[in-house]
């Protein structure tokens, strides 16, 4: 066994042993423990746990890779996935905490005084969360396939098994403490290689500053200027101005991710566990601090990875690398099938250009960039091993949090809340675990042919949450008169429009071959990509809800009083069941 493998096994198994130990130590004993960790979590701890929960395979493995190839266009992920916290802190978290319930559908059913509203919310939540997990599964598959040196599909099966053992064992309480550990692992794993590479390329150890610095080769040229030059010479779009599908698409994309963030149940659920309304506001801030640590480093990782990749393949114009002399990381990734080379002009050298006819790097899966990055930059083996552990931590923590959200919405909201109210606690927990198992099987199956790169798939999930849950919650708090009928109509219209648009381009439930319009730019409405359509869906949701409200009349007086009550922090108690 070579040194790299040994280190990777130590890092991955060591960190996993730690998570399992913590999960076992803090395992859930009761239903309330299973869902909300007993409420005794400080804003700082909660912020860290939210950070780990939030930063998934999409953030860790996929995002910087997408930025590397999209350049400026990748900004939608950076702004979209952080700006949502502003909305959460101001528009949702404090009021939902004050109301004091366990789950998002519970809040919706109280506020909109109807079981229909609760069922609709559960359905929206399941669709969004499942889509999200497909994205995670892609990330898990990539990480395991590289780490165990197997095909992507086998990596995915192994990942499914690990996620199952992990998520079914613990509940929220186990997950909260484990996630704090996972946050630490993933942030170290992400920033250490970035610091090394930034130091190597620019001499500045802080990646956020390194990205704006001059190259350390003595030329005095800024890194970003040089990168722009290199990529445009090969026919690619200029890195710092490459506008992804036009301003309108970028606008809608960012908006969709922002309001989707504020509408995703597994994130909102976290704010039910803080001790007070005051803590709910500051938790959002702490969460963003921990998230920003990674998100402000990501653009540097992306740009530098692209820079190193280009430089490795073509160190100087015209001096392309011989395929026979390709480095070890190249061979390793070829084994996974995620990196493919085809010698089109049979000169034995690697040509990587924008022109599809001449380009010989026929497949460079964006999701391998972050994991391959330290090896491309020739960093020490222990750093490469650390990144593998970090990527797995990110994917695992989010998958577990989402599975918990899905299982609680089915077992707690649907079965106990609506169908069989006299179910015992023990059966509720059992039902939750069965639901988790099914969710893993479904998302794993769909993960075999994911509708996009991990971050793109996750973006679709955000669009679905943005178009359904967020408007219903926001109107529930800010429009006192909003009635149940109107909100249900809004949610159905919003998610309906978004799903129709997404499925007609990406396939029904993402099954390949069922997309009747094809995933093509010319068929897009106003040039808005399916990933960005959640913003339009949200507008439809608001529009329909207010129109129906006009026709059917306002919510009853006692509901309006309830809204008045959760608008002020006074008298907040702990989260409680019915």
């Amino acid at each position, binding site marked *: 066994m070579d040194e790299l493998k040994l280190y990777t096994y130590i890092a991955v198994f060591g960190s996993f042993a730690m998570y399992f130990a913590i999960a076992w130590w803090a395992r859930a004993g009761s239903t309330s423990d299973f869902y909300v960790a007993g409420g005794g979590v400080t804003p700082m701890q909660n912020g860290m746990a939210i950070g780990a929960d939030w930063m998934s395979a999409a953030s860790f493995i996929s995002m910087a890779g997408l930025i590397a190839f999209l350049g400026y266009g990748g900004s939608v992920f950076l702004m979209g996935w952080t700006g949502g916290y502003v909305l959460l802190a101001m528009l949702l978290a404090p009021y939902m905490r004050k109301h004091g319930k366990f789950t998002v559908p519970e809040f919706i059913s109280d506020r909109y005084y109807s079981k229909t509203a609760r069922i609709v919310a559960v359905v929206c939540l399941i669709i969004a969360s499942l889509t999200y997990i497909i994205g995670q599964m892609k990330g898990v598959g990539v990480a395991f396939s590289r780490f165990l040196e197997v095909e992507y599909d086998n990596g995915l099966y192994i990942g499914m098994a690990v996620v199952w053992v992990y998520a079914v064992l613990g509940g929220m309480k186990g997950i909260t403490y484990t996630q704090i550990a996972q946050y630490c692992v993933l942030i170290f794993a992400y920033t250490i290689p970035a610091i090394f590479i930034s130091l190597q390329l620019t001499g500045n150890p802080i990646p956020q500053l390194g990205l704006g610095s001059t190259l350390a080769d003595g030329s005095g040229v800024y890194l970003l200027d040089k990168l722009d030059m290199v990529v445009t010479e090969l026919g690619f779009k200029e890195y710092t101005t490459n506008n992804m599908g036009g301003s309108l698409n970028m606008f809608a994309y960012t908006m969709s991710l922002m309001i989707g963030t504020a509408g995703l149940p597994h994130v909102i659920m976290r704010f039910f566990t803080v001790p007070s309304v005051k803590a709910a506001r500051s938790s959002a801030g702490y969460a963003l601090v921990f998230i920003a640590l990674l998100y402000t480093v990501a653009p540097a990782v992306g740009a530098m990875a692209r820079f190193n990749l280009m430089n490795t393949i073509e160190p100087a114009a015209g001096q392309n690398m011989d395929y026979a002399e390709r480095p070890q990381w190249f061979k390793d990734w070829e084994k996974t099938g995620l990196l493919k080379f085809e010698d089109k002009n049979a000169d034995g050298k690697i040509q990587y250009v924008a022109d599809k006819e001449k380009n010989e790097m026929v497949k460079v899966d964006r999701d391998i960039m972050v994991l391959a990055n330290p090896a491309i930059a020739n960093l020490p083996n222990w750093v490469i091993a650390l990144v593998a552990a970090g990527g797995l931590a990110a994917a695992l923590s989010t998958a577990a949090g989402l599975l918990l959200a899905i299982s609680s919405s089915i077992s707690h909201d649907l079965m106990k809340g609506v169908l069989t109210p006299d179910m015992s606690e023990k059966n509720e927990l059992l039902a939750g675990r069965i639901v988790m198992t099914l969710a893993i099987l479904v998302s794993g199956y769909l993960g075999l042919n994911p509708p996009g790169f991990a971050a793109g798939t996750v973006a679709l999930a955000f669009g679905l949450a943005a178009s359904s849950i967020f408007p219903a919650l926001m109107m529930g708090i800010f429009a006192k008169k909003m009635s149940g009928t109107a909100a249900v109509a809004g949610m159905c219209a919003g998610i309906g429009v978004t799903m129709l648009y997404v499925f007609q381009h990406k396939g029904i439930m993402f099954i390949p071959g069922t997309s009747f319009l094809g995933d093509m730019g010319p068929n897009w409405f106003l040039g808005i990509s399916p990933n960005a359509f959640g913003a339009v869906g949200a507008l439809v949701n608001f529009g329909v809800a207010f129109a129906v409200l006009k026709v059917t009349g306002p919510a009853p007086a006692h509901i309006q009083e309830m809204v008045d009550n959760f608008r002020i*922090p*006074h008298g907040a108690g702990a989260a409680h069941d019915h």
Partner: protein
Amino acid sequence: MEGNTTYWQENLRLIFICLVIWFVVSFGFGILLVEPLNAIRLGGYKLGFWFAQQGSIYTFLGLIFWYSAQMNKLDKKYNVEES
């Protein structure tokens, strides 16, 4: 109850201010005005590019903590703190 209404209105005013800033730094500087801003440089960064990939995130952070602090003051002023 009268006090609660003004409390809510002051809260709405704060939210409005924050969201205007939130919108301007991200959608404004980062997307709609990115081209004119890119003419200005911040070290190796073009300014519009910097707002899109760095500046907006720092601003979001500042906004949340400022809002929390202001709301804590407001809670005290209207005596609606949690017991």
